[in-house]
Structures are given as structure tokens and as C-alpha cells.
């Protein structure tokens, strides 16, 4: 996120924190108009934020839901053209994000966003999972048609994510190879496009969380690891958000990012940090996190306590600063 965006984010965060109307975000009262403005300006994706996909921006609206509460909705279409491959022009990624007043309703909304002609044991219309198999949000569901060759009904995939007050649905759509044919034959949705679609979901989720947290105004804290000093953030609830990439590199490891996934190795084990996930993976172990892994300024910001546990270390206060060290 570049500097102008950060300044705008800061101003907008200040604006919404200083107004008192409705209580949608993290217990912080905010004006509905401000919330809609934030959704449009900071949560909606920008052109090429998902590589190769253009967008005209998001449309923000309000929905009177069946639970008697309003949701703030972001609808956005990302479109890729010019591949020159029949069946891939255009490719659309469609985003439908709903911000609801409480966690229970957001979960119910997410389940309804999975509606299909099938019902799975948890009551959703899609099986649990994601397109990459990596965790995202508190819970997610995904469908994709796997096929060896083109056929009818293959050109779309759906990913639904629930995370706290957010219900999110991302779709990837192809057009038929021959739009004038009597039978619409689609290419199976390619793994690369599923990864890009999932990146869109992860970005929307973490951007919403950045706004929810009032990111720019979070106080900084000193964090020391391996005799080096890092800058962490502290949320209103006292959670420490640590810069995972910088920390791992400070500990002598190299962290890499591919689309929405940070990875590194640690004592012979592979560490995977999917942004937007409330879980970090170390080898085959899963370590829960209190907040989704955030992505800001090229850095993965992660619940410090969860990271320490995952690395087999301890995070404690010493003389006014945080120290990440052996237990």
C-alpha cells in the first residue's frame, strides 16, 4: 500500500473513529456514510492488485437482511482480457463482501452464500475448504469442478469465507469456448486463476480487518529478537501484531511471498503464513491466531503470541519492550 493510500487510510480511520452512529466495526461506533466510503476507498481492490485483472472499482450498497439488520455490501468485478485464448477472454473474478453487525449473523450469512442444490453436514451448500487448500478466515467453503478436458458447467468456481463480522463470496468465471455453440463448453478453471481468486478474497479480508483495527493509529511497540529491534503494533485489545517476514529474516530465515502466501523454513520445518488466515502452519502443525494474518506495506503482520508459540519461542515484556526468545 503506497504512501497516499496510507495517508488517506489514516484520515478516514480518524474520521470514522470520531463519529458516532452505528456500531458495525469492532465495537467502534461509526457513521454509515463513512463506513461506505471506507469500503469503497480502502477495501475495494485496485486495478492490477490481483495481477492481470482490471477493475472499475467497487459498488457499495446497503441490504436490509432477513435478520432485521442492515449489511454494508461491496460488489466488485475484476476482469482480465487479452489473453487471446478462447474460453479465457474475459475471465471475471466477482467479489461480494458483506459487513454485518455481529458474528452470529455474519456466519449465517456466509452459510447462505454457499447456497447450491446440495446440502453438506454442516448445513452449508458447499464443502468446507479453500481453492488452495490453505486456511482463510474463521471458516471457508469452496467448490471447483476438476476435469481433464473442457465440458459443460465447468467455467465457474465459488469460495465463501466467514471471518467475524464479514461474510465474503468470491467467484471465478470463464465464458464458453464458443459463445455461439448450442452447448456451452467451458475450460476447467485453472489452478492459477483459483489462486488469483483466492488472493482477491484474502486481500479483501485483510483490508477490511485493517480498517476494523484502525491500523494507522495503532501504537507501535519495540520488539527485540535475536538482539535486533523490530517495530510491532499493539491493538486496542492488547494483541501484539508482529512483522513476521522481518522477524523470520532477523532470526536468520528467508521468508518469501507468492500471491497471498508467505512461506519460510524454521528448524527444518516449513512455515506457511496465508494472509487472511487465523492459523499458521508449521510443518504439519496448525497454530491458531487471534487475528487473521494481515498484509500491509509488503509485510505479513501476525498475532505475536501465536507466532511465538508456532516457533517454539516465548514472547514476553522486559523493561518496556517485547522480547521474542527461548521459552
Amino acid at each position: 500500500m503506497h504512501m497516499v493510500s496510507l495517508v488517506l487510510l489514516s484520515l478516514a480511520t480518524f474520521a470514522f473513529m470520531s463519529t458516532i452512529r452505528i456500531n458495525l466495526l469492532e465495537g467502534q461506533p461509526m457513521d454509515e456514510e463513512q463506513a461506505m466510503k471506507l469500503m469503497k476507498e480502502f477495501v475495494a481492490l485496485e486495478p492490477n492488485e490481483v495481477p492481470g485483472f482490471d477493475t472499475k472499482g467497487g459498488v457499495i450498497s446497503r441490504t436490509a437482511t432477513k435478520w432485521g439488520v442492515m449489511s454494508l455490501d461491496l460488489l466488485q468485478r475484476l476482469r482480465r482480457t487479452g489473453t487471446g485464448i478462447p474460453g479465457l477472454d474475459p475471465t471475471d473474478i466477482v467479489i461480494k463482501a458483506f459487513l454485518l453487525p455481529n458474528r452470529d449473523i455474519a456466519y449465517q450469512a456466509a452459510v447462505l452464500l454457499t447456497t447450491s442444490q446440495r446440502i453438506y453436514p454442516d448445513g452449508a451448500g458447499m464443502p468446507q475448504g479453500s481453492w488452495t487448500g490453505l486456511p482463510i478466515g474463521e471458516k471457508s467453503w469452496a467448490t471447483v469442478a476438476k476435469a481433464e478436458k473442457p465440458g459443460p458447467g465447468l467455467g465457474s468456481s465459488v469460495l465463501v469465507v466467514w471471518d467475524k463480522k464479514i461474510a465474503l463470496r468470491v467467484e471465478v468465471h470463464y465464458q464458453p469456448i464458443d459463445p455461439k455453440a448450442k452447448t456451452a463448453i467451458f475450460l476447467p478453471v485453472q489452478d492459477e486463476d483459483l489462486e488469483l481468486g483466492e488472493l482477491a478474497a484474502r486481500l479483501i479480508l485483510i483490508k477490511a480487518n485493517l480498517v476494523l483495527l484502525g491500523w494507522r493509529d495503532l501504537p507501535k511497540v519495540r520488539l527485540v529478537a535475536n538482539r535486533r529491534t523490530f517495530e510491532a503494533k499493539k491493538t486496542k485489545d492488547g494483541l501484539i501484531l508482529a512483522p513476521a517476514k522481518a522477524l523470520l529474516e532477523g532470526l536468520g530465515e528467508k521468508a518469501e511471498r507468492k500471491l497471498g502466501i508467505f512461506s519460510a523454513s524454521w528448524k527444518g520445518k516449513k512455515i506457511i503464513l496465508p494472509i487472511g488466515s487465523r492459523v499458521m502452519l508449521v510443518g504439519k502443525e496448525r497454530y491458531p491466531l487471534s487475528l487473521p494474518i494481515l498484509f500491509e506495506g509488503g509485510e505479513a503482520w501476525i498475532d505475536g503470541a501465536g507466532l511465538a508459540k508456532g516457533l517454539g519461542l516465548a514472547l514476553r515484556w522486559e523493561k518496556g519492550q517485547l522480547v521474542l526468545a527461548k521459552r
Partner: protein
Amino acid sequence: MRAKSLIIALSIVTFLLTIPSLSFAQRWHYALLTEPSSYQLRWGEREPPSEDMVSMPPGLDTSRTIPFSPGCYKIGTSGFVLSYKVEDSILRGVIDVVVWDEVTGETFWNQTYNRVPKEGKISLVGLVLPSYITILRFQVSWAGSGTMFTRFSVFVVLDAPKAPMEPAWVNLLRYSCRWGRGTSNLEDAAQAITFGVFFQRPGFAYPSDTNTYWVNTLTNPPSFMLKALLDEWNAGRWTDGNCVNVSCLTMLALCRVGLDFSTRQLTGTVDPFTLNFRTNPICLIGSDPTIDQTYSPWDWTYHQVCVLSNALLPPSNTGLWDPKAAQKEDLNGNGYRNPPAHHPSHLWPEFDYWQKPRMQGASLGLVNSPLQEPTYPQHPNVPGFWSLGTWKCSVSANPWP
């Protein structure tokens, strides 16, 4: 000789100079069908409905923000009165009204009114709208110091639009009147529109993940994103659509032409492990039903179809319309290859449509296995409107970005 040439040249110049000056002075103020009243319409382009209404009466009014308005009338309507006003340099002219069928291009009615004043009312005596669904195009011409014309559409429907399509949406009328064109009663229209939805190209293609794409399930009742869908079709793009999407759109198209239809979800005894039932081989929407390879069985937990509003629950013989899939054989075992659409000459009663005979492995109707029951048992895991008899979605004109 030279004087004669000069006079001719001057005459030509004068003539050429006069024509544009007359033409520039000539313009329409309005040409409106002021009687009888049209059904109220909305464009279907934006929310809220109050900001989306079509100005009435139908025709041209240059003082409106959107000068042209289509109209919508019941089949057989007559007694039309054209109110008009033009600006021209001469006092009287000729009005010519031509009405043709927009679908077939055939002229339906034509009348010329000579030596009429620049402003007035003309009773279109003899103009009786057809007895079938169609779209007519009106052209009103004025011949005075020059000629000019204006055009607008009139939709001919079976009856007043029914909820949730009241007021009716112009953008859906363009489809439903084409699908149902030439039909003049409920049975024919419902069959034609069911077929029309199934064979629409570009149109719906059934997604193998069985997902619902165009219905916002967060609202009560669920809201169909009609404008968003039609924008895609109008741009030449295909859209995904499962039974919920397809039956809701068909229901809206039927309500639009004055038929009171709803949707209903059907299920029976699902497999306790998969929670699904298995269908007979069917050809889903978006595929060519004339080809054998497009037919295959599907596993679903439920299926949604169109029925008459307030239709009785089975085992009554209420008719059923299922635009989502074609069946290779009808309920008598004859070759069919069309989507089931109840009709006096081709019955698709709900009870038999589901499974005939009612036994495992039955080859006729939708369901192959397991044996289905004639009622609609509640399923504990199924959310929402499962237990309702018949239901209607609402409609949204919210756009896609």
C-alpha cells in the same frame, strides 16, 4: 436565354436555401398514446423503483428527461388515441401511423390522416392489439414542410403484471414477450416461456458445482439480481444458473406477461449418507438437448421448479414447469427432449413429473432413486424457505460494477 438561365439558377438557390430553413423549424413536441392507459412500467435499470419509473403515457415527449417511453397493454386492447404536437412553418400536414410486429417485422396496422393541424388528437379507429403476446413498434410520421417521424415500442401481454413484477420491467419484457410471442393463453404462454428460457443463447448454463449465483439469499424474500443478469446477456455473455436462478427468472418472466406463477422446492427421501437423491439422465440448461451425450444423472438434495401460485401440494395433479433441464422422454415414454412444461396437450403433473411409476429405478420423470415420497418432509439441515409451499423472490435492479 441568359435571363432564363439566371432565373432558373436563382430559383434553385432559393429552393435550396428554403429547405433547410423549413427543416430546422420543424420538430416534435410530443406524440403520445393518451388513451387507454398503459400498464405502469419501470425500466429495471436502477433502485429505488421510484427513480426508475417509465414516464407515461407511452410515446415521445421532448420535455421529458427520457423522451421515449414504451407502453404495455393487454391483448386485444383498442380505443387508442394519439395526441400530438409538432412545430412547423405550415398549418396543416399529414400524420401517418404504422404499427409493425417487432419480432417478425410484419406490418400490423397502418393509417394515414390527411390535412390535420399541427396539434391535436387522432382516434386510431380500427387499431386493435393482437390477441397474442408480442412486441409492436409504432412509427408516427408527420409530413408538412418536410417529413419527420418518431418510434416507440408497445408490449402486448396477457394480463396485468403480477407481483413481484408490478410495475413490470421493460428490460425483462423485451425477453419475455419474445419468448412468449404468438401465445394467447396461460398454457401456451407458460410453455413457450419455459422453452424460451431453456433455449436462450447466450443464456443460463448450469454450473457443475450446482451453486446459486443470481439470487441474494440474505434478504427476505431472496432477491433476484435481474438487472445484473440481463446486463450480462445483453453484453453477449453467458451466465451460470442452477434451478433456483432459472426457475426464479422464469417465474418473473411469466408474472411479467400477466401470469401468476411462483416457485417451489421439491425433495423426498434423500440418501442418508450423501443427503442427495439421484435423477434420471437429464440435459441441463445451456446444453443441446437433441444430443444424447448431454444427458446424465445428477445428485441433488432438492430441486426448484415453477408452479402456479398457491398450487396445491402433491399428490394433486398441479402442473409443473421446469426450465432447468430437458428430459429425453415425456411421461408416456415418448421422445420429448424439451424441458417439462405442463400443457393440456402435453401433461406434466407434479406428482408424475417427480417419478413415474413411483419405484426405485423408474425411468420416467425426474427421480431415479431412492424411492420418493409424495410429500415434502422437513430436512433439519436445510435453511430458509424449505418448508414453504410456493414462494416468490423479490427483484433487484442493483447493477454489477
